[in-house]
C-alpha cells in the first residue's frame, strides 16, 4: 500500500476500494515540478486534471492590461482543472502555475471519462466533487458581487487556513478581487478589534 495523499483522498472521500484506486493510480503520472512551472498556459489545450500531493498551484487569468486575477489556489489534497480546455476542447483562458516546489498527480481525462461510464462508485464520487465545486463557485460569485472585503477575507482563511503564510498579500488580494491596500486595511481592522477587546 502506498502512502500518497492521493490514495487517501480517493479511499476516504469516495470509499473506493483498493482495485479501483490502484487502477486510477496506475493511469496517473506523478511529477515533481519546481516553483514557477507552468502546468497550463492560456491558449493551450490540456488533457489532464491535477491533484496536489505536495506544494501549491494557482489558476489565474491575465487581463488586457497584464493584471493577474487568481481564480483558485490548490494546496495539498486539492484538485485543479481547466474544464473549458479539458472537456470542451477549447483553448484555455487560464494559466496554472506552481508557486512552490510541488508534487503533482496528472489525471488523464480519458481515465475520468472511462470510469464515469463504467463504475458507479466513481460516478457518485465524481458527482459529489462536481456539486461541491459548483457550490463553492456559486458562493464565490455572490461574494464577489456583494460581500464586503472582510467577509471575503474571513471566508478565504476558512477555506485556506495556512495560505496567509505561504503566498504574498498581493496573491490573496487578487483572489479576493480587492486591492492589496484594502486587504491590509481589513487585516489591520481585525487586529485592532481584537486589541480593543483584550
Amino acid at each position: 500500500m502506498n502512502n500518497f495523499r492521493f490514495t487517501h483522498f480517493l479511499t476516504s472521500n469516495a470509499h473506493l476500494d483498493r482495485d479501483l484506486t490502484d487502477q486510477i493510480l496506475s493511469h496517473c503520472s506523478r511529477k515533481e515540478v519546481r516553483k514557477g512551472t507552468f502546468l497550463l498556459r492560456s491558449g493551450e489545450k490540456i488533457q489532464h486534471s491535477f491533484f496536489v500531493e505536495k506544494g501549491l498551484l494557482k489558476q489565474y487569468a491575465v487581463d488586457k492590461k497584464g493584471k493577474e486575477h487568481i481564480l483558485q489556489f490548490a494546496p495539498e489534497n486539492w484538485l485543479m482543472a481547466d474544464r473549458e480546455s479539458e472537456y470542451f476542447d477549447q483553448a484555455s483562458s487560464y494559466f496554472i502555475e506552481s508557486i512552490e516546489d510541488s508534487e503533482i498527480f496528472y489525471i488523464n481525462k480519458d481515465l475520468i471519462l472511462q470510469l464515469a461510464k463504467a463504475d458507479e462508485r466513481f460516478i457518485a464520487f465524481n458527482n459529489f466533487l462536481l456539486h461541491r465545486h459548483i457550490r463553492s463557485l456559486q458562493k464565490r460569485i455572490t461574494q464577489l458581487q456583494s460581500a464586503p472585503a472582510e467577509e471575503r477575507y474571513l471566508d478565504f482563511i476558512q477555506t485556506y487556513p495556512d495560505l496567509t503564510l505561504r503566498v504574498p498579500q498581493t496573491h490573496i488580494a487578487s483572489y479576493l478581487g480587492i486591492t492589496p491596500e484594502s486587504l491590509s486595511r481589513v487585516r489591520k481592522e481585525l487586529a485592532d478589534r481584537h486589541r480593543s477587546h483584550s
Partner: protein
Amino acid sequence: MTSKRIELIAKPNPAHFVGDGFRVHNFIPSYPGLDMKRMDPFIMLDYNSKYAFPASSSPKGVGVHPHRGFETVTIAYKGKVEHHDSAGGGGVIGEGGVQWMTAASGVLHKEYHEREWSKTGGDFQMVQLWVNLPAQYKMSAPKYQALDHEKIAKVNLPEGAGIVEVIAGEFKGIQGSASTFSPLNMLNTKLEKDGQVEFTIPADHNTAMLVVEGSVRVNDTDIVPTDHLALFENKGENFTVFALQKAVVLILSGEPLNEPIAAHGPFVMNTRAELMEAFRDFNEGKFGYLED
C-alpha cells in the same frame, strides 16, 4: 565522572535563503539525526555561515511573520540585524549581541539587516535557534531580552586560553544573562590557538556544539571543522574542546521537555487542535498587526 562522546558530526546542509537577507544552513530539524525530538528543547537551528552581502540601499531581510509556542534566539557574530514586532518593540542586534524573543502566545515580527550596515554591506554571520517552551508557558505573554555584548556574563579561562560568554545557563558558577523556561546552557566560547576548555553538562541534556570559527579537537579524539555541528551522546558529563586554531564554538545543551510536538511552519504547539487554533488566531488578527 565519565566523558561525553561525540555521536555525530554534521556537515553544513546546502545553504538556502530565508527572505533575501539570511543565507542559512539548516541543522535542526532537517539534518538526519538532528530532528526536533532528538534535540529537544532545541527545535530549529539555522546557521548563516560567514557570507559577504553587497551594499544595498534597501535593507534585506524577512518580512512580517508570526511565531507562537517557542522562543527565538538570534546570536549575531558578524553584521547587524534590526527587528520590529507587533507589540511595538524593536531594536538592533549588534556584533556579539543576542536577542532572546519569547514568542509564547504570539507575536508578529520582521527582521532586516540594519539600515546603516546595509548601505556598506559586508560579512554577515548569525545563528538563529528556536527553543521550545514547556506546555504551561506556550500561551504566556511574549517578551524580549536584548543582550548587548557588554551585558553578557563572561568567564576568563585560565592561562589565557580564552573566554566563555554565558548567554544562558551556567558555567564555572557564573549564571547566564538570559532567563529561560527550562534548564539549558548556551555558551559562546572563544578560544586562542592551543587553548583548551572543559565543560561539565548533565548526561541527560541533549548537547551540541557548532564551530563558528576555526577548528577544534574534542576529547583528544574528534576534529570538528569550521561550520560543522557536533552532537554528543546522552552519556557522560565531561568533554574538552581544544582549539587547533583560534576558534569560536557555540555550546548548546538542554534538558529535554519530553512533551508532544505539533509543529507547522512558525507555530510549535503540543496538539494538532492547538496548531489549528494558532492559524485561526493569526488569520483573525489576534497576533496584532505589523506593517510590512
